[in-house]
């Protein structure tokens, strides 16, 4: 399932400048990482390595940020930025560009935090914006649960692209992380995907939003969007 676009009719009150800036930054840093990539070097230095974090080796807080902007390959970058575009614009519109940036970074940090807590023995560097993006999805769930997203999925080889409510898309993505995250933690089955980072970003954003905007939760129950 691939979210393609936010199709709600109500227009944004301002251009999504910070979303665009983050997409550009992610692209530049990722490309720079590929150009200057050195095996066993680049991602160890700038990725989020749980064992390094716990042993206070390497960039620490800095790598929390740098890891968010690095991506493994073009597909990793593309799908993350597509999700950032789909879910980020309306969240930025709701809170303004600077609060959006702070929220984005905070979700990325909670993603890293949870990964480090759960996968404390892992020497594998984590990279990618998906923790922060799951955080934006959590914000979208609370603020705009009924918003319709054009989504692409395949049954066999046949493509479908209906408009689905954000709540179903977000819950699908979150649910798809739970089992692999459990298997990763319990049995050490590494899939190459930072499931705990995704869950950390998502639940971090829910916790922050419910503290900062509890009335948004009430509106959620009243089926009204912002």
């Amino acid at each position, binding site marked *: 399932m691939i979210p393609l676009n936010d199709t709600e009719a109500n227009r944004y009150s301002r251009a999504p400048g910070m979303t665009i800036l983050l997409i550009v930054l992610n692209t530049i840093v990722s490309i720079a990482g590929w150009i200057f990539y050195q095996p*066993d*070097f680049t991602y*160890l*230095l700038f990725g989020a390595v749980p*064992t*390094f*974090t*716990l*042993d*206070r*080796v*390497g*960039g*620490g*807080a*800095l*790598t*929390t940020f740098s890891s968010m902007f690095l991506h493994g390959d073009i597909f990793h970058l593309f799908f993350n930025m597509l999700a950032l575009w789909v879910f980020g614009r309306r969240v930025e519109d709701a809170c303004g560009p600077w*609060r959006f940036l*702070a*929220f984005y*970074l*905070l979700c990325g*940090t*909670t993603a*890293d*935090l949870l990964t*480090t*807590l759960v996968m404390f023995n892992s*020497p594998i560097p984590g990279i990618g914006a998906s923790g922060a993006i799951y955080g934006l999805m959590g914000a979208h769930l609370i603020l705009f649960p009924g918003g319709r997203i054009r989504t692409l999925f395949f049954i066999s080889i046949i493509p479908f692209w209906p408009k689905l409510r954000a709540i179903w898309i977000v819950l699908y993505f979150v649910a798809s992380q739970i089992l692999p995250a459990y298997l990763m933690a319990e049995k050490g089955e590494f899939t190459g995907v930072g499931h705990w980072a995704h869950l950390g970003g998502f639940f971090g954003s829910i916790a*922050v939003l419910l*503290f*900062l*905007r509890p*009335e948004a939760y*009430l*509106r959620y129950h*009243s089926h*009204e969007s912002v």
Partner: protein
Amino acid sequence: MGDSPFDLDQMQRTAIALAKGGRLVEARNLLVQLVESDPNREIAWVWLSDLMDSPEDRLIAMENALELHPGYRPYLQRLEQLRAQQDRFHQEDTLRSQEWMRQAAEALKDGRRDLALNLARHVTLEDPAAGQAWLLVANLSPDPAEQERALEAALRANPSDKILQRRLEEVRELSQHPLLLGLSYQRRGDLDLAMDVYNRVLTSSSSREERVEAATLLDFATFYQRFPEVKPVSPNRTLVRMATGPILLYLFLLLMQSGLNPLHAPLLPALGVLPTILGSFLLVLAGTRPLHPAWVRAFGSAGQGDEPLYRGLAKTAAWLMLLTPYALLAIDSFERLARLYQTLSSGGSLP
């Protein structure tokens, strides 16, 4: 030239004849003219004690007649009757006012504020000393001038009531700043009154900033009216919530830097926690809308005098306080990164 006694006698006879003929109003008017010309007309006063409209005036007329003929038993008895009548009338007045106030309370419970207001106004017309009715008018009236008059009247009925005194001072102050008045209504839960005020400012203010602010406040008030279960958040709580983001972010980053063990936090960044907290609050405060109570308290009203300068200074100080700890954290991170780089470059062993 004044009226001669003969003319006055004639006037008296005419008035009495009019009264006996049932032309009471003309008789009363003539008798009033008569006693104005000659206050010693005992008979005129006696007739007026029957013809005057209000019980008080009838009583006064009888008292004047008694003064001219002291101790006269029929006048004394008539005076007693008039006093008893006046008491009964006052009781009826009181009962009527009480009934109106009861109806006003019911109307208020049903949300019919206009009806409640009109009933309270009637009570104050009947009984200018009805403190409760004046208080109701003050609470319900959208007009600051009427509120002020009502509070003054309520205070006359209860001169020692400190709450009323404070409210009167507040209304006098707020009537100079309509949006602040609207906000004070909104904070005490009177959304309808608040929206009335915002609408008035939106349609009649000559200041563009004030109209924009009124439109924003009207949006919020409309939202809270649609979602009554969502209580307006106090401006101070909003300030705390908005300031929490950068503080949380810093704390999490510090936690990552210290290897999830706060005891191993680097010293300078750890000391940066307090400036981060202060800077975050100051930044949010400096960026609040003009009508935040903190600025109103500091400057009397928003946007006047030196407030923009102080906001600018506050923002600058806030950014310095906020960014310095982050910079210290970044420096510590870079140092560690440099050490790791050297280890990796030299092929040293990793932890």
